[in-house]
């Protein structure tokens, strides 16, 4: 299974580079094994460089850049092994409008193999959805759901 781990790691890494470059319209990203001699026990380091920026630690990235990088890694794993469903709670909160669109366009493609449920306040995100569930509290402290379907 060491070989299987390495194969999976390589696949996820290839996906990560490609998805990162797409979400950031360029730029380079990489996953590396901390301890190459012992892959099954090794941690995984991430390097990520948005387009035109120099190599620097992840800590310096902006709120929106960190969110997009995390999304890129999540999609990279899903392309190898899609989760049956995936619920995302307000992951679009730190994103500017252009990034919300890039994220949503990619999500629509991933949605072929994974059912996505997204909790959001963002109008743009809502416009990409197939269906909308509204949650309300008409009666104080009591949640109620109203479903709105569209294509």
């Amino acid at each position, binding site marked *: 299974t060491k070989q299987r781990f390495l194969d999976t790691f390589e696949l996820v890494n290839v996906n990560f580079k490609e998805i990162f470059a797409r979400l950031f319209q360029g730029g380079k990203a990489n996953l590396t094994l901390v301890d190459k001699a012992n892959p099954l026990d090794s941690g995984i380091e991430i390097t990520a460089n948005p387009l035109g920026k120099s190599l620097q630690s992840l800590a310096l990235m902006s709120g929106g850049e960190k969110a997009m990088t995390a999304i890129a890694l999540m999609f990279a*794993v*899903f392309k190898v092994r899609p989760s049956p469903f995936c619920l*995302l709670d307000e992951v679009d909160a730190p994103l500017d409008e252009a990034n919300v669109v890039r994220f949503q366009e990619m999500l629509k493609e991933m949605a072929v193999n994974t*059912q996505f449920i*997204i909790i959001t306040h963002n109008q743009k995100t809502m416009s990409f959805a197939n269906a909308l*569930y509204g*949650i309300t509290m008409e009666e104080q402290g009591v*949640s109620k759901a109203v479903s709105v379907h569209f294509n």
Partner: protein
Amino acid sequence: MYLKNLELEGFKSFVDSTNLEFGNGFTAIVGPNGCGKSNVSDAIRWVIGEQRSKTLRSTRITDLIFNGSSSRKPVNRAEISLTLSNVPAGIRIAGISNTAEDVKVTRCYHRSGESEFYINQIPCRLKDITDFLLDAGISPKVLTIIEQGHIQDIITSKPEERRILIEEAA
């Protein structure tokens, strides 16, 4: 396989029996602050086996049971049922024959402290539920649910934690 519906009763702010049906596409859950959207996320995490109170934003397990409002008394039981559709044949389901295509897992917690677990209405243990879900590719450990404010965790986490992602995908 996909999540067909989620039934909530007595769980956090969902005191009344509520059935959320999800199509096999991309659904957005919307509503004002505090109306209960993240509680839906907590419900799914709880029924698929999440045990840690902190990650369900509660300090005690009884925080999961509807504890009243200005117009309602508290109740004594929280119940969540999650139905998966198009379940592949051959997944082990604790000795329950997987004849139907839909599999419903139910988790119940009483204020008195008792827990109940069911698969397709038949009593079972929590382990039976988590074993079945693991075979189906669902677990609190993988990227099934990203909590509010936690999207950055994947990249701020320790290198060892990221290895788990690759292990689960392998």
